[in-house]
Every structure is written in C-alpha cells, then in structure tokens.
C-alpha cells in the first residue's frame, strides 16, 4: 500500500447526501475476483450514458476533474453495502481523500485499509468546499488537518492506529499476526 503523508490537490465536488456504495460501484461490477481496474466503473450509472459513452454533465467527466485526488461529498458518504470495491474503485480512479460531514462505518473502515482518507469536517467547512469547487486543498495526515487556501487548517479526527498504518504504508494484518500469542492464549481459555 502506498504511504500517505500529505497530498495537495484540487477538489472535485459531488454535493449529494447519502451517496451509497451501490452508486460508487454498482453490483453488476462486483462479479470479479480481482481488486484492480475498478476505476473505470466508479459511479458507472451516473458517469456513463445508456450507450456507454461518458455523460458530459457528470462532474467527474468534466475536464476540471482530471487529476483531482480529493472528492467533496454530502453527509453519510458510503452508506449501504459493505463492498470494499467502493474504495478500490475510488483509489483506482485516483481519489486519495473524501471530505464529508460523516461516513458510514463500514465504508470508513474499508477506506482506511486502502490508503483512502475519510476527512470528517463540520457543516460550515463542507458548505464552503461545496461552494468552491476546484479549490486547491492539502490533506495532511501528520497534523490531521485539511488545509484550505485561505490559510485555515481544519482538524479532522482519525484513529491513531489507522493513521500510523496509512503513514507507514503498512497494512493491519501484520499487527494482528504479531498478536498470535494472545490469540492462542484466548483460544486455549475458551476451548
């Protein structure tokens, strides 16, 4: 996993609330046994017209969205299905951070395991970001802040362990495997 310390990028804004993981990647694209290459199916039903051509009105298809790594979205992003294909599709497309006022629990957990940072901000900050699409922002994990062009640094909460793993670019399985002695002891107590 690619280490995440700090990224600076223009934002792309999708100002809808309750964007569910069926929108992020529809179920028919889950018939895969791999996790790469899902970026082309990101937001497929919004992004493509019935004939498969890109929908020119959808924000991710606009030239200004090219290369954006930070997605701004409405409340309760990632609700619904537990499919990890959602963060896989987002990161494969190039998104490294999503900013919202809240995230669904399973999506948040999945994102943190895939180098995708869920940035929770207050309503006013989100409104400002929605009103200023294409703003250059910095998501800085060391300081756990979202830095705005006017100099404001908005702190966001992130679990220390998840932050450590993101910054080191290590996955969490190594840590779990390192607790083998405790796991074995638990199993013996509960045999």
């Amino acid at each position: 996993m690619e280490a995440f310390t700090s990224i600076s990028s223009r934002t792309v804004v999708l100002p809808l609330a309750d964007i569910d993981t069926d929108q992020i990647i529809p179920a028919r694209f889950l018939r895969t046994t791999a996790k790469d290459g899902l970026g082309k199916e990101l937001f497929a039903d919004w992004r493509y017209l019935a004939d498969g051509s890109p929908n020119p009105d959808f924000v991710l298809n606009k030239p200004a969205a090219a290369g954006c790594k930070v997605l701004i979205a409405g409340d309760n992003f990632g609700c619904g299905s537990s499919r990890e294909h959602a963060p896989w599709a987002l990161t494969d497309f190039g998104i490294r951070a999503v900013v919202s006022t809240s995230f669904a629990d399973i999506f948040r957990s999945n994102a943190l395991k895939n180098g995708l940072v869920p940035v929770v901000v207050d309503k006013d900050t989100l409104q400002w970001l929605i009103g200023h699409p294409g703003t250059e922002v910095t998501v800085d994990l060391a300081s756990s802040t979202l830095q705005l062009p006017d100099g404001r640094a908005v702190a966001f909460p992130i679990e220390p362990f998840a932050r450590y793993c993101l910054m080191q670019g290590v996955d969490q399985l190594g840590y779990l495997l390192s607790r083998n002695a405790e796991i074995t002891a638990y199993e013996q107590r509960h045999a």
Partner: protein
Amino acid sequence: MTMPKTLFQKVWERHEVVPQTADTPAVLYIDLHLIHEVTSPQAFSELRSRGLPVRRLDRTLGTMDHSTPTRTEQVFGGKPITIESAAKQVKALETNCAEFGVELLDLASDKRGIVHVIGPELGATQPGKTIVCGDSHTSTHGAFGALAFGIGTTEVGHVLATQCLLQSRAKTLAINVEGTLKPGVTAKDLVLAIIGRIGVGGGTGHVIEFRGAAIRALNMDERMTVCNMSIEAGARAGMIGPDEVTFEYLKDRPRVPQGADWDKAVAEWRTLATDEGARFDREVTVDASGIEPMITWGTHPGMVAPVTGSVPATSDDPVFDRALAYMGFSAGQKLQGSPVNVVFIGSCTNSRLTDLRAAAGLLKGHKLASGVQMLVVPGSQQVKKQAEAEGLDRVFIEAGAEWRESGCSMCLGMNGDTVAKGLYSLSTSNRNFEGRQGVGARTLLASPLTAAASAVRGAITDPREFM
C-alpha cells in the same frame, strides 16, 4: 456490586483478546466467519500471497448466494450459469474452499442459501457469538443476541488468517418498541418506520439493541427482519436479547450443542440479557401501535411513508427532488394506486418461512394483475423445501408467480435477475437505492403482505383490504 451491563457490552467483553487502548483498537475474537463468492476471492489471494493458512476451519463456513442463478435448470439441470463472470466467481469460491479446506455449501447442496438465512437455520448462529461476513446484512444474526456485523474484504482476510478483527468499541443505542403491532402490520413495517424516524445515518457508530414488548412478541424470522435492516439506519449492528423464543427456535438445530451441553449453553445464554439499570449512550422509544404498513417512495430506505399516505409535499432532504425525479413521483402524490410492474418476494430481509406464509396466505385464490411479473425466491433450499411441503409454492405458481431456487436474486440483481429501466418493483428486500435492482429500476420497499396485495392489484395496495 458490579456495574450493570448491556447485551452488547457483555458479548464484546467476552471476546476481547487484547483490549482497546488510546493508540490501538481492540483485538476482537470472531466465533463464526461466514464467507460467500463475492467478497472473499481477493482475501484468499492475500492469504495465498503471504503463504498463510485459514486459522480456524471449524469456525469458517462458505456458501454461494449473490451471483448464483435461481432458475432450477441452471442450479440443478446441468445448464451452465449464463453470466461468465458469475460462473467464474462461483468457481473461484469452490477452488479457494477446496485449497484451504473450508467447508462449502455449494450450488447443489440442500443446505445452501442466502448466507444470513442458513446461519440461523443450521444453528451455527447462536446467542453471545461474534459473527462476521463480508456482507453488510450480517446484522441479521443479531436477532439471536449475537454481535454480528458486516466487514470488508481486507477484514475477511484478517479473520481467515487470525480469527480476529481490529475493532473500536461502538456506542450503544436502545430502541424501545412498546405496545402491539396492529393486524396487517409486520416486522418489516416496524423497521421501515424506525429507519424513517432515526434516518439512514441515525445509527452510525452505534450498535442498536431492539427492546420492548413489541420486539419480545416477534418470532425469530421477524426479529431477523428487524435486525437485518439495522444497517439501513447506518448502525454497526442490531441485537435482540435472547429469550425463550430464541432457545425454542435453536433447539435441535444441526449445529447447536445437544443433550447436557444444550442445557449448559442455554444457562450461559440466559446471562446475556441487558442488566436492569444498564446505561445506553442513546435511547429512542417507538409506539408499535401507531405504525401502519409502510412503503418507500424514494431512493434510500429512510424515504418511507405509510401505504395509506403520500410522498411528502416538501422535504429538507437535499436529495428529495433528485429522488422524486428518479422515481417518477411528484411531491405530495398519494401512494396507494400507483402502478407496480414487478413484485419480488425474497432477500435476507424477507425470504423465510414466516414471510412466504404471509404472502401466500394473502395471495391464495387470487391471480396477479395483468402484466405484473412476480418472483418468489426462498432464502434457502431448506426454506424452499418446507414451503413446498406446506403447498406454498402451488399458491404462488397458481397466482401466476415464478417459484425459484434460493439466493439473493433480484435484491441486487448480480445474478441477472433484474428489473428493467423505469419499471416499478415492489420488493421485500432492503435497499431502494438508484439502480439497485437494475439500471434505472424503481424500487418500492415493503412487507411480504403489501407485496402480495399489490401484486394482485398491480398497484400499491394496503394489505388490510384483503384481510
């Protein structure tokens, strides 16, 4: 005196391998890991690349449900699965389970079915257990007083390799449902009403415990319907304290303790109920007697109204206009009488015997309205067999419905059972998201009773008109 504890707290504490600290999440032991074809292949690949075995084969059970066909000739008749990617995924699960030694209830097994239907049916789901699966509706198993929740594929790998998960402790939310549900009002209506009340993000970060007289009065199938949709309120899990109804359901199931061990297990399970005076982080009280048959009108399960009601005239929901445009509804529109083209009875929410009996009971002696397509997909092969023994299949077939083999089917259309663009699908499933049942499909979530009544009229119908 020890501090009174909630059900959640007791189950959590009994599974802490390493407690949570300021810097690290808890290492939580998992008693039962259910796997299926969609969210496991990448986890097996991870194990393979690291040279790791599955730690506890005795705690891991596989089945196939999402991508699998429901047409009998494809399941049993030797005809191949028509969707190549689905066939490949099913094959991958067979290969992975064989290679790692995981028990698999495969396509031909008479124990196969939707993962959240077979766990309880086999008695693998038990009070006090921690249960996970790479599927958000794992919350279903909480109906037995288990702590059960959906995980992503990376975590599926964690559990396969270590039988543990890294977890931060959730907050607790008590939903006290007092009073009695009126005739014609089901567990599905109850949970839809609760989601309408607290919102699709209302349970985020919390484990819900459903409590109160109306919950105690539900049978296990109905309790599973309620816990199943906890995730639709954003909750990490939903739980119900185990009681005599729970023990009665589980007794003599294939995978529960037998004989003296059964008595010992029940004695242990009796200690799980939330203690008198235990504190929840939040509490909500709901009056069951005020709930009507409910139906969704929008594009998430919180957009819901009584069947006898209307689409709201206005809303502060920022996606209200978008949802109406997608659904082809107008603000303030009356719901009853609005056309229904497809009816789906099935999914981990409403595909158990109680659901099929309710729908068949209403449907008996009636025919589907002209032009209505109706699919009845039992939750498991065992449910199918029992329903057939009761003659429920005949009722559905004689009414003009299709009777299929078990699976997730039209809930999410991964297996090709989809709803065409623009059509209205009255579905007993759990999600009415845009495109959930097919590109452009318009889903109306309701109970099996409302589904059956609406199938007869070809329009949204209050099931009490048939009672």
